[in-house]
């Protein structure tokens, strides 16, 4: 069908084709192609001649000056010998004798010559106080040499090129040449070039002109290189090393100066060992930097310190810079009413310049410029979009609400995120939007009605008490109130009005809210059981620390947020050691992601049971428990309560501190056991000795870091049996006891019976579910026994 392709016929090309057009070969002007060596014009010749003459004259002059200097020296010597004659000879007119004057150099070099020759020289040197009125040797000489200038010139050149001996005397000349070269223009350069070439011409006359040319070029390059090197050295020497200011307090500086100093200090801190001055420590520099940054960006010292702890120095400046600038205005399409494409079209018709916010969101639009106020267009009023920061999309995306779910937004005002949730749920299910502030809740009402959210309940309960009214939600979004250190561009007052107490208050509130949020979730939900925690702060105290707290207090674990960008949360921060899964949380910074500073964490609740908060008594037990866990770790025994510990977080510093105490306690306990054994009788004396040794070794172990495993293999294998593991606390000594018994072969001691009793009691209490309680019971039983025995 259609046109048939003519495969058989071979197409003949009609012409070169449009694309085959070729540029013609370039044509060069004749002059450029072959440059015939021009003969110098008449004027040029004349100028060249003049130049040569001039140069010769200059050299001559210099030579003469030298000659006079040296002759002066000689005459002093001679004058002692022939005093009387000299005065007479002076009167002889100089012009009459030209011969001796012709060889002044010879004279200099060979002062001890015949008298005949000496005389005229003496006559030359006869310049003294007596005759200085009329005798001016320099002038006279030049006048004399005028006639023989050419000859001497030739001589000079010969000397220059051939006689090494004379070179020393010519040094002055070359020096002067150099001086001239420095001060004068290119013309001189050329002259000196031609000079050197002339010198070489004698040796290498057979060189081609191009070779000469290259030689010239090389020489030039060498010179330039030398100059460049010198300049470089100068630069290095002249580079300003930052001087630590003497009087930081009373200095009056402009903003530019401060900025410059900030840069300088950062440079110094980047390579501290090299660039520091000897007197000031890193702390001093940091203090100076902090002060300058506070001045420049008008922060208070406290907040700046927090930021300096959080960011590296270069990043810090970027962050501060970014915090000065507003983020681009973004809007979110209300998918309940309109599609993004239609909205974009409608807004473009109103003269709005916009773009999709990025690959990661299908509802966001960035507004670059707009002729109409974005918050008052008919489209806005009709609820087709809402003005919302790009970062506010993230928690809702992380929450990933499903249709027909029960979802709670605990701190919802002004309802941007909540309406986003409703839009994703497509108005199905139930959305509870709560905010404690009654003034702000009106914004939620307005936004919900404007955007057509119909499945919502809007309440003004205190989030911390929300569980008292209703629970059993599938998902909860907690966008907690915070210090707002991520949105300084929006509210610059944060810079100055936040201190430690504010952060502490926020953090406490956040913890309470998060626990309430977790409690209001139903972990048995078929689709959900998720909590998303977010803040618009970048401080660790309000983010990771709060999550870590919740991980310890509730049966929740961290899961991936599902956001493909953003930096990972901190697992370690200064002295804090957070749960390793903290890397699942996401941080967003204004300087890296061009959105407000933000933190998003997603938690999954896996059990509705609320673990009892540790009371004072239990806290002590907890301390002991931790110590046992440590021992388990050492023995590489996988504990049955690993799960609990996993969610309970790592051993914090506090518990580490308490370890020392634990060790002491264990020690006393062991002593108690020893006493019991003593009472058992003397037949087990050898046993005791071994026990003691074992005890010592164990206490040593306890003091060592958990990696070292020094217990005997037998002990390990014994401990691996679950029953014996249940024995734990009184136990460890007992395990070794068993071995000791085997070795001594005094098996039927009272001690053994005691152990049996212990085991029976254990059997009775063996039904207790958690290991912790087991341990407690063990402690109790052993205590009882001890009292019995005593």
């Amino acid at each position: 069908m259609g046109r048939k392709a003519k495969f058989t016929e071979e197409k003949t090309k009609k012409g070169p084709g449009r694309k085959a057009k070729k540029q013609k070969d370039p044509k060069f002007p004749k002059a450029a192609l072959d440059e015939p060596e021009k003969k110098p014009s008449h004027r040029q010749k004349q100028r060249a001649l003049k130049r040569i003459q001039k140069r010769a004259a200059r050299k001559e002059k210099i030579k003469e000056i030298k000659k006079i200097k040296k002759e002066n020296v000689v005459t002093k010597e001679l004058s002692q010998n022939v005093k009387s004659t000299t005065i007479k000879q002076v009167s002889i007119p100089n012009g009459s004798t030209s011969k001796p004057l012709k060889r002044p150099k010879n004279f200099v070099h060979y002062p001890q010559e015949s008298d005949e020759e000496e005389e005229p020289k003496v006559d030359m040197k006869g310049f003294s106080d007596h005759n200085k009125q009329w005798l001016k040797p320099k002038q006279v000489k030049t006048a004399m040499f005028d006639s023989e200038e050419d000859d001497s010139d030739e001589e000079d050149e010969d000397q220059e090129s051939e006689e090494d001996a004379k070179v020393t005397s010519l040094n002055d000349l070359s020096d002067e040449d150099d001086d001239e070269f420095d001060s004068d223009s290119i013309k001189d350069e050329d002259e000196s070039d031609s000079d050197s070439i002339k010198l070489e011409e004698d040796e290498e006359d057979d060189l081609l002109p191009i070779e000469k040319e290259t030689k010239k070029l090389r020489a030039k390059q060498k010179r330039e290189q030398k100059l460049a090197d010198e300049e470089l050295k100068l630069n290095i020497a002249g580079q300003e090393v930052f001087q630590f200011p003497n009087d930081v307090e009373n200095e009056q500086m402009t903003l530019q100066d401060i900025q410059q100093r900030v840069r300088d200090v950062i440079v110094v801190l980047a390579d501290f060992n090299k660039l520091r001055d000897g007197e000031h420590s890193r702390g001093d520099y940091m203090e100076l930097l902090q002060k300058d940054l506070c001045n420049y960006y008008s922060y208070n010292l406290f907040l700046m310190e927090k930021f300096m702890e959080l960011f590296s120095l270069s990043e810090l400046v970027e962050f501060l810079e970014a915090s000065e600038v507003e983020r681009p205005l973004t809007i979110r399409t209300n998918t309940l009413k309109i599609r993004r494409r239609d909205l974009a079209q409608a807004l473009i018709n109103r003269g709005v310049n916009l773009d999709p916010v990025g690959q990661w969101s299908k509802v966001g639009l960035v507004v670059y410029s707009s002729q109409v106020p974005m918050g008052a267009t008919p489209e806005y009023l009709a609820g087709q979009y809402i003005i919302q920061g790009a970062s506010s999309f993230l928690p809702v995306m992380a929450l990933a609400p499903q249709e027909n779910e029960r979802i709670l937004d605990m701190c919802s005002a002004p309802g941007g995120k909540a309406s986003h949730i409703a839009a994703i749920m497509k108005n199905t299910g139930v959305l509870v939007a709560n905010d404690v502030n009654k003034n702000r809740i009106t914004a939620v009402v307005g936004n919900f009605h404007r955007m057509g959210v119909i499945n919502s309940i809007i309440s003004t309960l205190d989030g911390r008490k929300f569980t008292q009214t209703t629970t059993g939600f599938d998902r909860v979004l907690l966008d907690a109130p915070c210090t707002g250190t991520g949105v300084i561009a929006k509210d610059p007052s944060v810079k100055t009005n936040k201190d430690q107490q504010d952060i502490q208050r926020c953090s406490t509130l956040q913890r309470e809210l998060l626990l309430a949020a977790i409690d209001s979730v139903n972990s048995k939900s078929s689709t959900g059981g998720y909590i998303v925690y977010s803040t618009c702060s970048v401080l660790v105290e309000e983010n990771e620390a709060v999550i870590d707290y919740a991980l310890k207090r509730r049966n929740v674990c961290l899961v991936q947020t599902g956001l493909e960008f953003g930096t990972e949360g901190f697992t370690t921060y200064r002295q804090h050691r957070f749960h390793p899964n903290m890397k699942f949380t996401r941080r967003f910074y204004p300087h890296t992601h061009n959105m407000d500073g933000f933190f998003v964490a997603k938690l999954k609740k896996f059990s509705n049971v609320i673990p009892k908060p540790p009371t004072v008594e239990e806290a002590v037990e907890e301390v002991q428990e931790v110590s046992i866990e440590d021992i388990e770790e050492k023995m590489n025994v996988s504990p049955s309560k690993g799960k609990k510990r996993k969610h309970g977080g790592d051993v914090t510093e506090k518990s580490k501190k308490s370890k020392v105490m634990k060790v002491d306690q264990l020690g006393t306990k062991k002593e108690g056991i020893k006493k019991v054994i003593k009472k058992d009788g003397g037949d087990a004396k050898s046993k005791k000795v071994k026990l003691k040794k074992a005890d010592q070794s164990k206490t040593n172990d306890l003091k060592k870091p958990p990696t070292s495993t020094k217990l005997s293999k037998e002990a390990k294998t014994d401990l691996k049996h679950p029953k014996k593991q249940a024995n734990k606390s009184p136990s460890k000594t007992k395990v070794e006891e068993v071995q000791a018994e085997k070795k001594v072969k005094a098996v039927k001691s009272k001690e053994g019976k005691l152990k049996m009793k212990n085991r029976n009691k254990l059997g009775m209490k063996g039904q207790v579910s958690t290991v912790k309680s087991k341990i407690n019971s063990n402690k109790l039983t052993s205590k009882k026994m001890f009292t019995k025995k005593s």
Partner: protein
Amino acid sequence: MKRLSEERTKKLFEKLSLYIGSNIKLLIERPDGLYCFREQKDRVYYVSEKVLKIGESIPPEHLVSVGTCFGKFTKTNKFRLHITALNYLAPYAQNKLWVKPSMEQQFLYGHNITKSGLGRISESTEKFQGIIVFSMSDVPLGFGVAARSTTDCRLADALAVVCFHQADIGEYIRSESDIL
């Protein structure tokens, strides 16, 4: 949250029928579950039973809104529709009025609609009947009462009012704090 009394229900439906006529039926008998009218602090809310159940568990002093607010009963016991009801009125509207872009902004600032700003109007609109106002691109802007019937509108001069303003979406900005 309480059920509406007989009297109040009647008043509410009378008012609604002014705008959506017999389409009220569609509001009550819905395929996607039971919906009902509830009253709290004289405000009337239209809400699904499912949402209502959870809403009832929240103490009334802390409950701000459930579902969609349709309007309120005044102190003189008359029912007054709020702009928030527009979501339900617009799709079921019987009488519509489209305004020209030039009039759009004026209406959103709370002015009546004059003949000059009238783009289109549905036929057979009677005088003093409820009417939903749309922009030319079919975005609902608010509602009002027809000042003239459709036939009268044709004859009216440019400055004559064709629709009295009752509520418009500009209220979301102008009076956000007392939107309910």
